[in-house]
């Protein structure tokens, strides 16, 4: 019954599978959803979704999948009939007046009448005096003014509110294909790590201690070893100024996240404007330059290079020689290629969405560096690519 809904979720890249389906089935068998769509919404969300980044997709899928049910009334007949039965129980959703009205009607007749109307009615209906719908005067419906006996459909039953809740899309900002905050960036960067045992011997090596003690005929022989430490070195190269200004906040967040990432053994940050010609700068104000040959001498291929920039510039900036003394008579694009050659683990993060990557210079740079959008998803992919490259 809910399986098509799972496929709806899968089509929205929410990873649900047999485990989730079985769990949801168990929950429904145990009646955790209180036989209401609202309850089903909460139970399904708790069991099918494992990460807040999928909550929005869940809401969308839910709204789409169950919206239909809201208007094509036939499908919910059974549920509506249940409400009628429940309404007969005391204190359930009804004011004393409504209850009195309901009591005037024989439940069987009402049900039959209801079913009959349901069959006749093929579409959503508002403001009538016969069909089931809202704001009408028929005996069935919601927010209506039936002067005579009838029953209220929907609202408190929860279906409308569950679908409405889903349509509100309150979790939009947690999607992972949107741009991200410092914390999310940190999470993504944390995957960029590699451990090695180096440095002072200040960790007890239990296995070796036991072996050595035994070899020592029971005389305690303590063996130590250096602790496992992160061995990741990262170079962050950021484009500043000009067309990058609108992304200044975003780039500064990435910078903060990288700075806070304690698992980097070393983090170097440099700045450039539009394109790289022979040198980069230690300060965002383009002071303290360091030439590329010097940078190459200080770093080796163990360093991972992350370039952040929109790759937008006048084509001549990429294809011509700058004329500065440091550029060794080479075009901008050649410098980029030298960077890529030196740092085998390197990538380019672009704050512009991929849909705008058709411009000439972006297209050229994409051929030099693997390019990813500066979103959580993109950063994750980039980090994955960097860890794979050795």
């Amino acid at each position, binding site marked *: 019954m809910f399986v098509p809904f799972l496929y709806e979720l899968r089509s929205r890249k929410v*990873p649900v*599978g047999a*485990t*989730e389906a079985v*769990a949801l089935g*168990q*929950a429904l068998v*145990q009646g*955790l959803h209180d036989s209401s769509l*609202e*309850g089903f919404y*909460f*139970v399904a*969300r*708790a*069991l099918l*979704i*494992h*990460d*807040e980044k999928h*909550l929005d997709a869940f809401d969308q899928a839910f709204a789409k999948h169950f919206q239909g049910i809201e208007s094509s009334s036939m499908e919910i007949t059974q549920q509506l009939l249940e409400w009628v039965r429940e309404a007969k129980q005391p204190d359930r959703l009804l004011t004393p007046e409504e209850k009195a009205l309901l009591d005037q009607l024989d439940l069987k007749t009402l049900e039959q009448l209801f079913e009959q109307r349901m069959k006749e009615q093929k579409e959503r209906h508002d403001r009538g005096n016969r069909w089931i719908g809202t704001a009408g005067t028929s005996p069935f419906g919601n927010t209506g003014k039936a002067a005579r006996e009838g029953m209220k459909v929907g609202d408190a039953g929860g279906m409308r509110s569950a679908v409405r809740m889903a349509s509100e899309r*309150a*979790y939009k900002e*947690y999607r992972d294909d949107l741009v991200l905050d*410092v*914390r*999310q960036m*940190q*999470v993504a960067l*944390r*995957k960029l790590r590699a451990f090695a045992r180096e440095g002072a011997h200040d960790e*007890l090596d*239990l296995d070796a*201690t*036991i072996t050595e*003690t035994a070899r020592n005929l*029971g*005389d*305690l022989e303590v063996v130590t070893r250096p602790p496992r430490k992160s061995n990741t070195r990262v170079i962050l190269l950021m484009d500043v100024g000009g067309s990058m200004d609108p992304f200044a*906040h975003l780039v500064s*967040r990435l910078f*903060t996240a990288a700075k806070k990432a304690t698992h980097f053994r070393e983090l170097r940050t440099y700045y450039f404007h539009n394109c790289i010609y022979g040198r980069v700068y230690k300060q965002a104000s383009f002071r303290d330059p360091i030439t590329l040959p010097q940078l190459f001498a200080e770093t080796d291929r163990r360093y991972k290079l992350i370039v952040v920039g929109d790759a937008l510039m006048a084509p001549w900036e990429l294809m011509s020689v700058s004329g500065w003394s440091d550029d060794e008579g080479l075009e901008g694009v050649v410098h980029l290629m030298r960077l890529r050659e030196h740092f085998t683990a390197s990538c380019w993060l672009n704050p512009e969405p991929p849909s705008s990557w058709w411009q000439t210079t972006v297209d050229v740079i994409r051929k030099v560096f693997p390019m990813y959008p500066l979103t959580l998803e993109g950063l994750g992919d980039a980090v994955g690519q960097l860890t794979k490259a050795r």
Partner: protein
Amino acid sequence: MKAAHEVVTLATMRFKGTESYLTSESLRSAVDCAVALQRPLLVKGEPGTGKTLLAEAIAAAMGLKLLTWNVKSTTKAQDGLYVYDAVQRLHDSRFNDKDVRDIRQYIRHGPLGESFAAPERRVLLIDEIDKADLEFPNDLLHEIDRMRFKVIETDEEVVAKHRPVVVITSNNEKDLPDAFLRRCVFHFIEFPDRDLMQRIVHVHHADMAERLVDQALGVFYELRAFSRLRKRPSTSELIDWLAALKSAGITSVKLDEQLPFIGALLKREQDLMAFADQFGGKLPKRA
């Protein structure tokens, strides 16, 4: 057959929050699912939204004892099951203090092991699971799934007499592995909206003037909406700030450069600078 009976009573049990812990319907539903399906409940959300308190509330509501396992960056999955103190044993063997042949003396249960071995059901809180190594949750999969583990040194199996209600919190510092997530019931605690926040404030500062609370909440949510902040103020900071306002006898606040005790809400240098930049004035003095 006792076990089956237990499942029934547990399944029919519904969590309603406690007097001091206010819940939403979605949270109640998630707790019910976790308890009935006997799966761990994974709670995520911004810092200060009451993730840790939830476990206490569940324990209080169900009348069970709470065991807490605070995870640190050095914590290993094995620490939660049991620790074998080999060095002590080696040491003892040297001085013939105890009978070192009885290895059981050197096995100590961790929080998970303790909750399995306990004579009655426990609520086990695994707090801030994301602090540990990436592999940590995966290492616990089997134990949490089967609710049993083997002590290799003694070849004895520890089986849970009563499956503990496991609550896991995460601050989102790391992504958790998929295989682990699949086994959990997930709940994301949203940041409380104004109505709920008003009720939360009321729980902590019942005697506060309504007008001040209203103004303070206005300032608070406006600050949170201010996109240049690197760390947005959270519930606990609001509560502290209100306490400061109360003890200083302040009767009205508004969002400008004069905002009192701004240091209770914004704790980063850059955030204070951004604030000063936006709302004028010099860098506000810290309270």
